[in-house]
């Protein structure tokens, strides 16, 4: 047993982030750790790696006790980790990033440095050679070495972070969502990398959302929910465990899930890539209120959106579906004027979105309900709503509009004077949508409205979306929950790595076998 966790607990205020978790990780295995948003996975990792203190319980790495040690000591003992949000040393080159990883094993050379002039010394050569070997072991060519970490493409950055972690020569490697934001072929590459590293004898603890990735690669999987471990076994056992299915997979009451999408999920996504164009594309509308042509958006060196074109006609619901990191949110943010595109055009009813001010765009009726809700937690529900009428203020009718919106979302009416931060996730989502409605949108952009919500809240949210649509609002919907999105959409586009792969009517895509296997789990 390489890593042993015994009844680990950690709470923040009233929230039991980790509530008595025990886990054994065998030497040489790949152990998976999954669970819905907020289940406590990252907190558990932070406790193990020393960033957060144990409140009770213990952990051992072989015979070394971990509880009470600070993070750098735990790293020194041989536990390496990557981070959910990639924490590379951005201003250093890839090579330098890996070299820093060798810090613990490097002898202190202060005196030596002071005594010599800058001559290339022997052990520095050695270290550089080792660093290049590490880059190679994660599949990065040596040409990547001298490039600044910030300029590397996303997938390479993830690999680089792993290479840096490996520089510690760890006994245990913890990967925190290493495939987040990757497209299907990149995910496949990551999977192969993980398997290769494990084949060389490295014990790996893999945390991820992506059920398919974890099931496909791990020998054993543990499932967390609300800080407790609810299952622990082989992938097959866990994926057929009814408690797990209910907690983790509930995406719509009516959908029957016999088994979780299996190990072949990643392959199916690639099938969709290959099937691009084979599905009959729905006809694009002639008269569109939103017209996007050849839009390209980059963040520094990373091209997030490449040459995307689509249109939305008045009164439609159009959905953009695709995996995390496909570029969907970037498109919405560009339409809202938060990001400027590199090239291409986007016109909303005559307004040039690429050059208009964000506040102007909202005034003209293009309103976004952002991902993660982004409500003002410290202000009350009422204050949030009142602020939302800022852009389209018109005196007395403002009051009436607020009351109308509260009628549509009665739960907000009940909570009107509470601080927005105290609402549940679903209620916050309602608030965010209500706020969007108050800005009198002609086109409403919804970015991942069901993200992180419990299944029945998801039902309510989508019901509200349909109602809003029936009342005549045009909607552009971005969703990871492809099933729900396609069920209510008139038309939809499938986006992967910044490009549109497929388009069609909601129904067509819902029944397209490749799309089903890739995004709907069968």
């Amino acid at each position, binding site marked *: 047993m390489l890593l042993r966790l015994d009844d680990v607990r950690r709470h923040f205020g009233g929230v039991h982030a980790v509530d008595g978790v025990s886990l054994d990780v065998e030497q040489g295995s790949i152990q998976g750790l999954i669970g819905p948003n907020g289940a406590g996975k990252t907190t558990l990792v932070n406790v193990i790696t020393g960033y957060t203190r144990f409140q009770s319980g213990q952990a051992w790495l072989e015979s070394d006790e971990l509880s009470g040690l600070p993070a750098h000591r735990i790293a020194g003992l041989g536990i390496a980790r990557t981070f959910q949000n990639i924490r590379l040393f951005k201003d250093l080159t890839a090579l330098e990033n890996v070299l820093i990883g060798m810090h613990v094993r490097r002898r202190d050379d202060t005196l030596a440095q002071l005594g010599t002039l800058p001559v290339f010394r022997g052990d520095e050569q050695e270290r550089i050679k080792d660093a290049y070997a590490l880059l190679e072991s994660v599949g990065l060519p040596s040409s990547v070495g001298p490039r600044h970490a910030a300029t590397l493409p996303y997938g390479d950055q993830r690999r680089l972070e792993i290479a840096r972690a490996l520089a510690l020569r760890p006994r245990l490697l913890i990967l925190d969502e290493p495939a987040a934001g990757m497209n299907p072929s990149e995910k496949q590459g990551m999977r192969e990398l993980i398997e290769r590293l494990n084949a060389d004898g490295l014990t790996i603890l893999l945390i991820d959302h992506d059920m398919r990735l974890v099931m496909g690669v791990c020998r054993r999987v543990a499932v967390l929910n609300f800080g407790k471990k609810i299952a622990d076994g082989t992938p097959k056992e866990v994926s057929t465990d009814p408690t797990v299915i209910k907690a983790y997979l509930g995406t719509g009451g009516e959908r029957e899930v016999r088994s979780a999408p299996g190990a072949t999920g990643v392959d199916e996504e690639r099938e969709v890539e290959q099937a691009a164009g084979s599905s009959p594309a729905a006809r694009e509308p002639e008269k569109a209120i939103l017209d996007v042509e050849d839009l390209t958006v980059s963040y520094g060196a990373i091209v997030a959106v490449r040459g995307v074109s689509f249109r939305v006609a008045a009164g439609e619901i159009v959905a953009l579906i695709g995996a995390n990191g496909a570029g969907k949110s970037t498109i919405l943010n560009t339409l809202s004027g938060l990001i400027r595109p590199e090239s291409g055009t986007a016109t909303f009813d005559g307004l040039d979105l690429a050059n208009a001010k*964000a*506040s102007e765009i909202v005034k003209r009726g293009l309103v976004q309900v*952002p991902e993660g809700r982004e409500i003002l937690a410290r202000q009350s529900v009422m204050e949030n709503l009142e602020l939302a009428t800022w852009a389209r203020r018109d005196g007395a009718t403002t009051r009436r509009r607020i009351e109308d919106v509260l009628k549509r979302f009665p739960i907000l009416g009940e909570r009107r004077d509470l601080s927005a931060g105290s609402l549940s996730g679903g209620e916050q989502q309602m608030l965010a949508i209500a706020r969007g409605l108050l800005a009198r949108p002609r086109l409403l952009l919804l970015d991942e409205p069901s993200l992180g919500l419990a299944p029945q809240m998801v039902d309510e949210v989508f019901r509200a979306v349909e109602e809003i649509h029936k009342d005549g609002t045009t909607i552009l919907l971005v969703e990871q929950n492809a099933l729900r999105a396609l069920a209510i959409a008139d038309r939809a586009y499938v986006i992967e790595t910044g490009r549109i792969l497929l388009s069609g009517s909601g129904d067509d895509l819902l029944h397209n076998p490749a799309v089903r296997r890739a995004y709907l789990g069968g």
Partner: protein
Amino acid sequence: MDQQILNAIFIGSIYALFAVGYTLVFGILDILNLAHSAVFMLGAALTYSLVVNHGQPFWIAALLGIAASALMGLVIEHVCLRPLRRRHAPPIAALISTIGLALVIVAAVEQGKSGSLFSWLWVDGANSVAFPAGTVPNPTWHIGDLTLEASKVLIIPISIALMLILGYVMRFTQVGRGLRAVAENPRAARLMGLDVDRMISLTLVISSALGGLAGILFGLALGDISPYIGRDNVEVRGLAVIVLGGMGSIPGAVIGGYLLGLIEILALVTFGSNARGGVAFAALFLMLVLRPQGLFGTRLRERI
């Protein structure tokens, strides 16, 4: 002793008024506007100059002084802050650009001598001057063994009234809510259609107007106006106040101001006048070490 307490309240009011502007900018922009103390000085200097060199009645001079300070706020935003925001510069850059502007303002006043480029602004160079007696009616009362000068006493209700008004605006008006929205989440504010740039300009204008007014009151009541009154009195003390009260918290700035006034007077009485300055900074240091978020600030935690 009681006279000293009264003094503590006077000076505390000035500190509080000054610090409110400081903390307002930090709360909304996450930036320390180090030109604030220069605006404090400018308000006083300009008002003095208008009265003494241009023969204006005090009330008009004061209004113009406040207006000029507010205008300075716009200058700060357009010269020091907006260009950096456009370039996605880190917050430290704003620290430095506002330092630069403060240098310019102080130097301009310092160089204000008759016949120089800036004589319209100030002619007393590096000297300290005071408003001539009789500039404002200044009746003095004696109650018990306390001496109350109207000019000093009036600082208190004026300051408190202003802070209450500001508090009301922030809490209950649409504008105030907009400012709080920008403070909490600029992205959400943009998506709600708020013109964030304009909100920021407004913040700087309000903050600088308050700073200039604090300077005018200081100059009036304490009879000390020079290019260095900002640096010597409030530049660093203002930092102490907002640290004590909690950076970004307006009530914190108010309470912190009076608290600092009190601490200083206590130190004065206990250790003698020399300890006064040192104590403020010792308090500042201790607060940062023990409770960096101050009395009313919120705990900050980084996400891993």
